[in-house]
């Protein structure tokens, strides 16, 4: 194991008393997630590229009935964990975060505005990119041009569902409504605009802008830009930012801004 690996195993198993550790490491010349327990070799840990670990966490979590899980968590991981814990999908008492500040190279790749988690345990924080240039360009376009742009982009979609599979807050998995014909009736591939509009709506109160969807898309559709635009709308209209640990969703509250906290947390 490398230095970073040694540091993390000590932090996770000795300091935080976790039972498991979730990291990203080098494997076969590329990056892969690793879920290790106390006495395993964590390998060559690498965090110099974007990788949403919460996607992995949420998929394996149902199969780990007990034990504390330490996860190396960047800002986006932290937000994703908040989104999942407030919906009862993860038990926050079982998750311990090791805060990782992203390096400049990674932050650039994600066009991230704020690459610093709330508590930094590893890494030197860097400044983020305040404005996404693609979003700025799209907002300046006329409505007609923008629609032409997105139609051209969405024609590349082949319904691989890579965006949903890699999304950390997309927890519907097999029950995803986008796989059905009722609401997204276009049988064709590419699936038509309704698919992307419905996804944007469903993501509006969850998306933490990690950019995994864009990186996963084989058609190179700039999905992150669309998510950013919707995020800006949510912020403007409802002062809501996904990753908010308290409010589940402004779409489920009354006009006065009252949060129905206790009702929801029944689950």
């Amino acid at each position, binding site marked *: 194991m490398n230095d970073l690996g040694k540091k993390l195993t000590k932090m996770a198993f000795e300091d935080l008393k976790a039972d498991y550790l979730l990291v990203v490491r080098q494997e076969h010349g590329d990056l892969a997630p690793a879920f290790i327990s106390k006495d395993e070799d964590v390998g060559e840990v690498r965090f110099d590229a974007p990788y949403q670990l919460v996607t992995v966490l949420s998929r394996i979590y149902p199969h780990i009935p007990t034990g504390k899980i330490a996860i190396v968590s960047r800002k986006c991981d932290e937000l994703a964990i908040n989104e999942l814990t407030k919906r009862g999908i993860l038990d926050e008492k079982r998750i311990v975060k090791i805060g990782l500040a992203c390096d400049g190279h990674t932050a650039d790749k994600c066009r991230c505005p704020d690459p610093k988690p709330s508590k930094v345990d590893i890494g030197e924080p860097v400044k983020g990119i305040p404005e996404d240039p693609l979003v700025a360009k799209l907002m300046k376009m006329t409505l007609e041009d923008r629609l032409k742009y997105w139609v051209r982009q969405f024609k590349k979609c082949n319904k691989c569902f890579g965006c949903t599979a890699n999304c950390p807050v997309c927890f519907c998995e097999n029950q995803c409504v986008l796989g059905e014909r009722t609401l997204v009736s276009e049988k064709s591939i590419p699936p038509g605009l309704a698919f992307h509009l419905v996804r944007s709506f469903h993501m509006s109160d969850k998306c933490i802008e990690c950019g995994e969807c864009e990186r996963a898309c084989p058609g190179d559709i700039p999905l992150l830009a669309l998510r950013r635009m919707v995020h800006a709308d949510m912020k403007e209209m409802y002062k809501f930012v996904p990753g908010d640990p308290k409010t589940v969703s402004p*779409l*489920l509250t009354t006009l006065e801004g009252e949060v129905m906290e206790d*009702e929801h947390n029944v689950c």
Partner: protein
Amino acid sequence: MPRIGVFICHCGHNIASTVDVEKVAEFAKTLPNVVVAAHNMYSCSEEGLGAIRKSIEENKLDRVIVAACTPRTHEPLFRRNCERAGVNKYLFEFVNIREHVSWIHAKEPEAATEKAKMLVAMGVAKAALLEPQEESESSVIPVAVIIGGGISGLAAMSALVSQGIETHLIEKEKQLGGILKDIAVIGPEMKNTKELLDKMIKEIKCSPKAHFHLSSRMTDMQGFVGNFEVTITGDDKCSEKVKAGAIIVAIGGREWTPKGEFGFGKIPGIITQLELEKRLAKGDVPDNAVFIQCVGSRIPGRDFCSRFCCNASIKNALRIIEAKPNAQVTILHRDIMSYGTTAERVYRDAAEKGVRFMRYGLDSLPKIEKHGDGLSVEVFDETLDDVIGMSVDTIVLAVPMVPIENVKDVATQLKVPVDKLGFFLEAHVKLRPIEFATEGVFICGTARWPSQVSECIAQGLGAAAKASIPIREGKVKIEPITTSCNIGKCIACGNCVAACPYQAIEIIETDGKRHAFVTEAKCKGCGNCVAACNNDAMQQKGFTTTQLSAMIDALVKNAMEASQ
């Protein structure tokens, strides 16, 4: 494969004068799953209904569509008709081509016919996906709660306890009687109020089923028809909870206080009708008086008539003359509202006994001034076309009855609507009076609309009659428009739980899988959960996503094709 029958109604000229009914029927024949399409002159008539039943039998139909007026009136009729012919009544779909087509596109018959075709296509698409439903039942607690111990509340209570129904009455004052406590005699026939109230209360108290909660208010109400829980809190802050099957709202109104009209509050000797009642009860009778009717009512912002004030003034005018035969009493009015034989007779009597009636207009209001120890009144009489001056010692302002101060709070607790003025809105003025759209809650008396005492009593009896129906039946039918969760599609995200306004949904675990569960008796069928559900797991009976999506598809297909 569903077998759909489509029946287009002419409704006489109402639909057929604009919509080409035959063309619509021809078009309907081309739609998928439609086995027969016909048109009738009046589908709701015995003949029309019979023709539909015959067609159901002959063509072995299992889905029926009627394209006619509005489902809000005739849906129950056509549903029962289907049932008679052996088709589950929820396999019926109503398409509105009268209120929504022929009556509003009267000058565009071609476009109206096209629109009717589209709507029928949408209805057919939905009908093909309808599922048979059964109404489920919920039991009813055989107790009634009446809020308000005025005359209408008491009338309701007497009717309920005389049927042997356990009834709780909540009254915020120490005594029963409401506004009538302050009125000694009720017009038009000069009935003694105390006798009336005492008699009613005595009769009620004879029953062991009658329970009074005086100096108390309703502080909370939960539940639904048949299963309400009402929290009653006394002035001493002690609370008790009463479970009930029906609730009657009889909270009454209050006399509006003038804001300085005609010198009220500034010039002594100007009083309201209730103040006059109190004075007359003490024997303090004016030597001469002027009544001014419609003060603060029948004007913009409060444009209603309170119905009883003319009779009240006439009654009080006659009382003044009886006590002091030489008294000069004048009633200044903007129309006299004394309807019914008794009231008309009393009005005539009053005029014959010397009460003067003068009509004034809004553009020439009576002028009031202090004049020595008394008051002077100058009014332009419309009939005489001249200004008349009078000297009086008392001016009585007949003001409207308005809702009580905190009526909105009560309305919110009961989850029932009030109109702009604050009077309660019943379900439908003609088809469903005295009851709210919220089942199990009823309204009577002046909280609903200012009324005469006899009308309040009648409404109280009516509300009691309606309230006793679910109590006597012991059960209520729940219309199958409730929602349910498809466990296979549910991921227990909790959106529906948060969205439900009735807190009818919870997350439970079945066979190791967490999912949402709807308590059907609490579900009112709003469908909020359906829209909140991202996974298409929540479905509303009769309005499923497949059904509504099919309607959208039908519109797209038929409209786009037509425009191609």
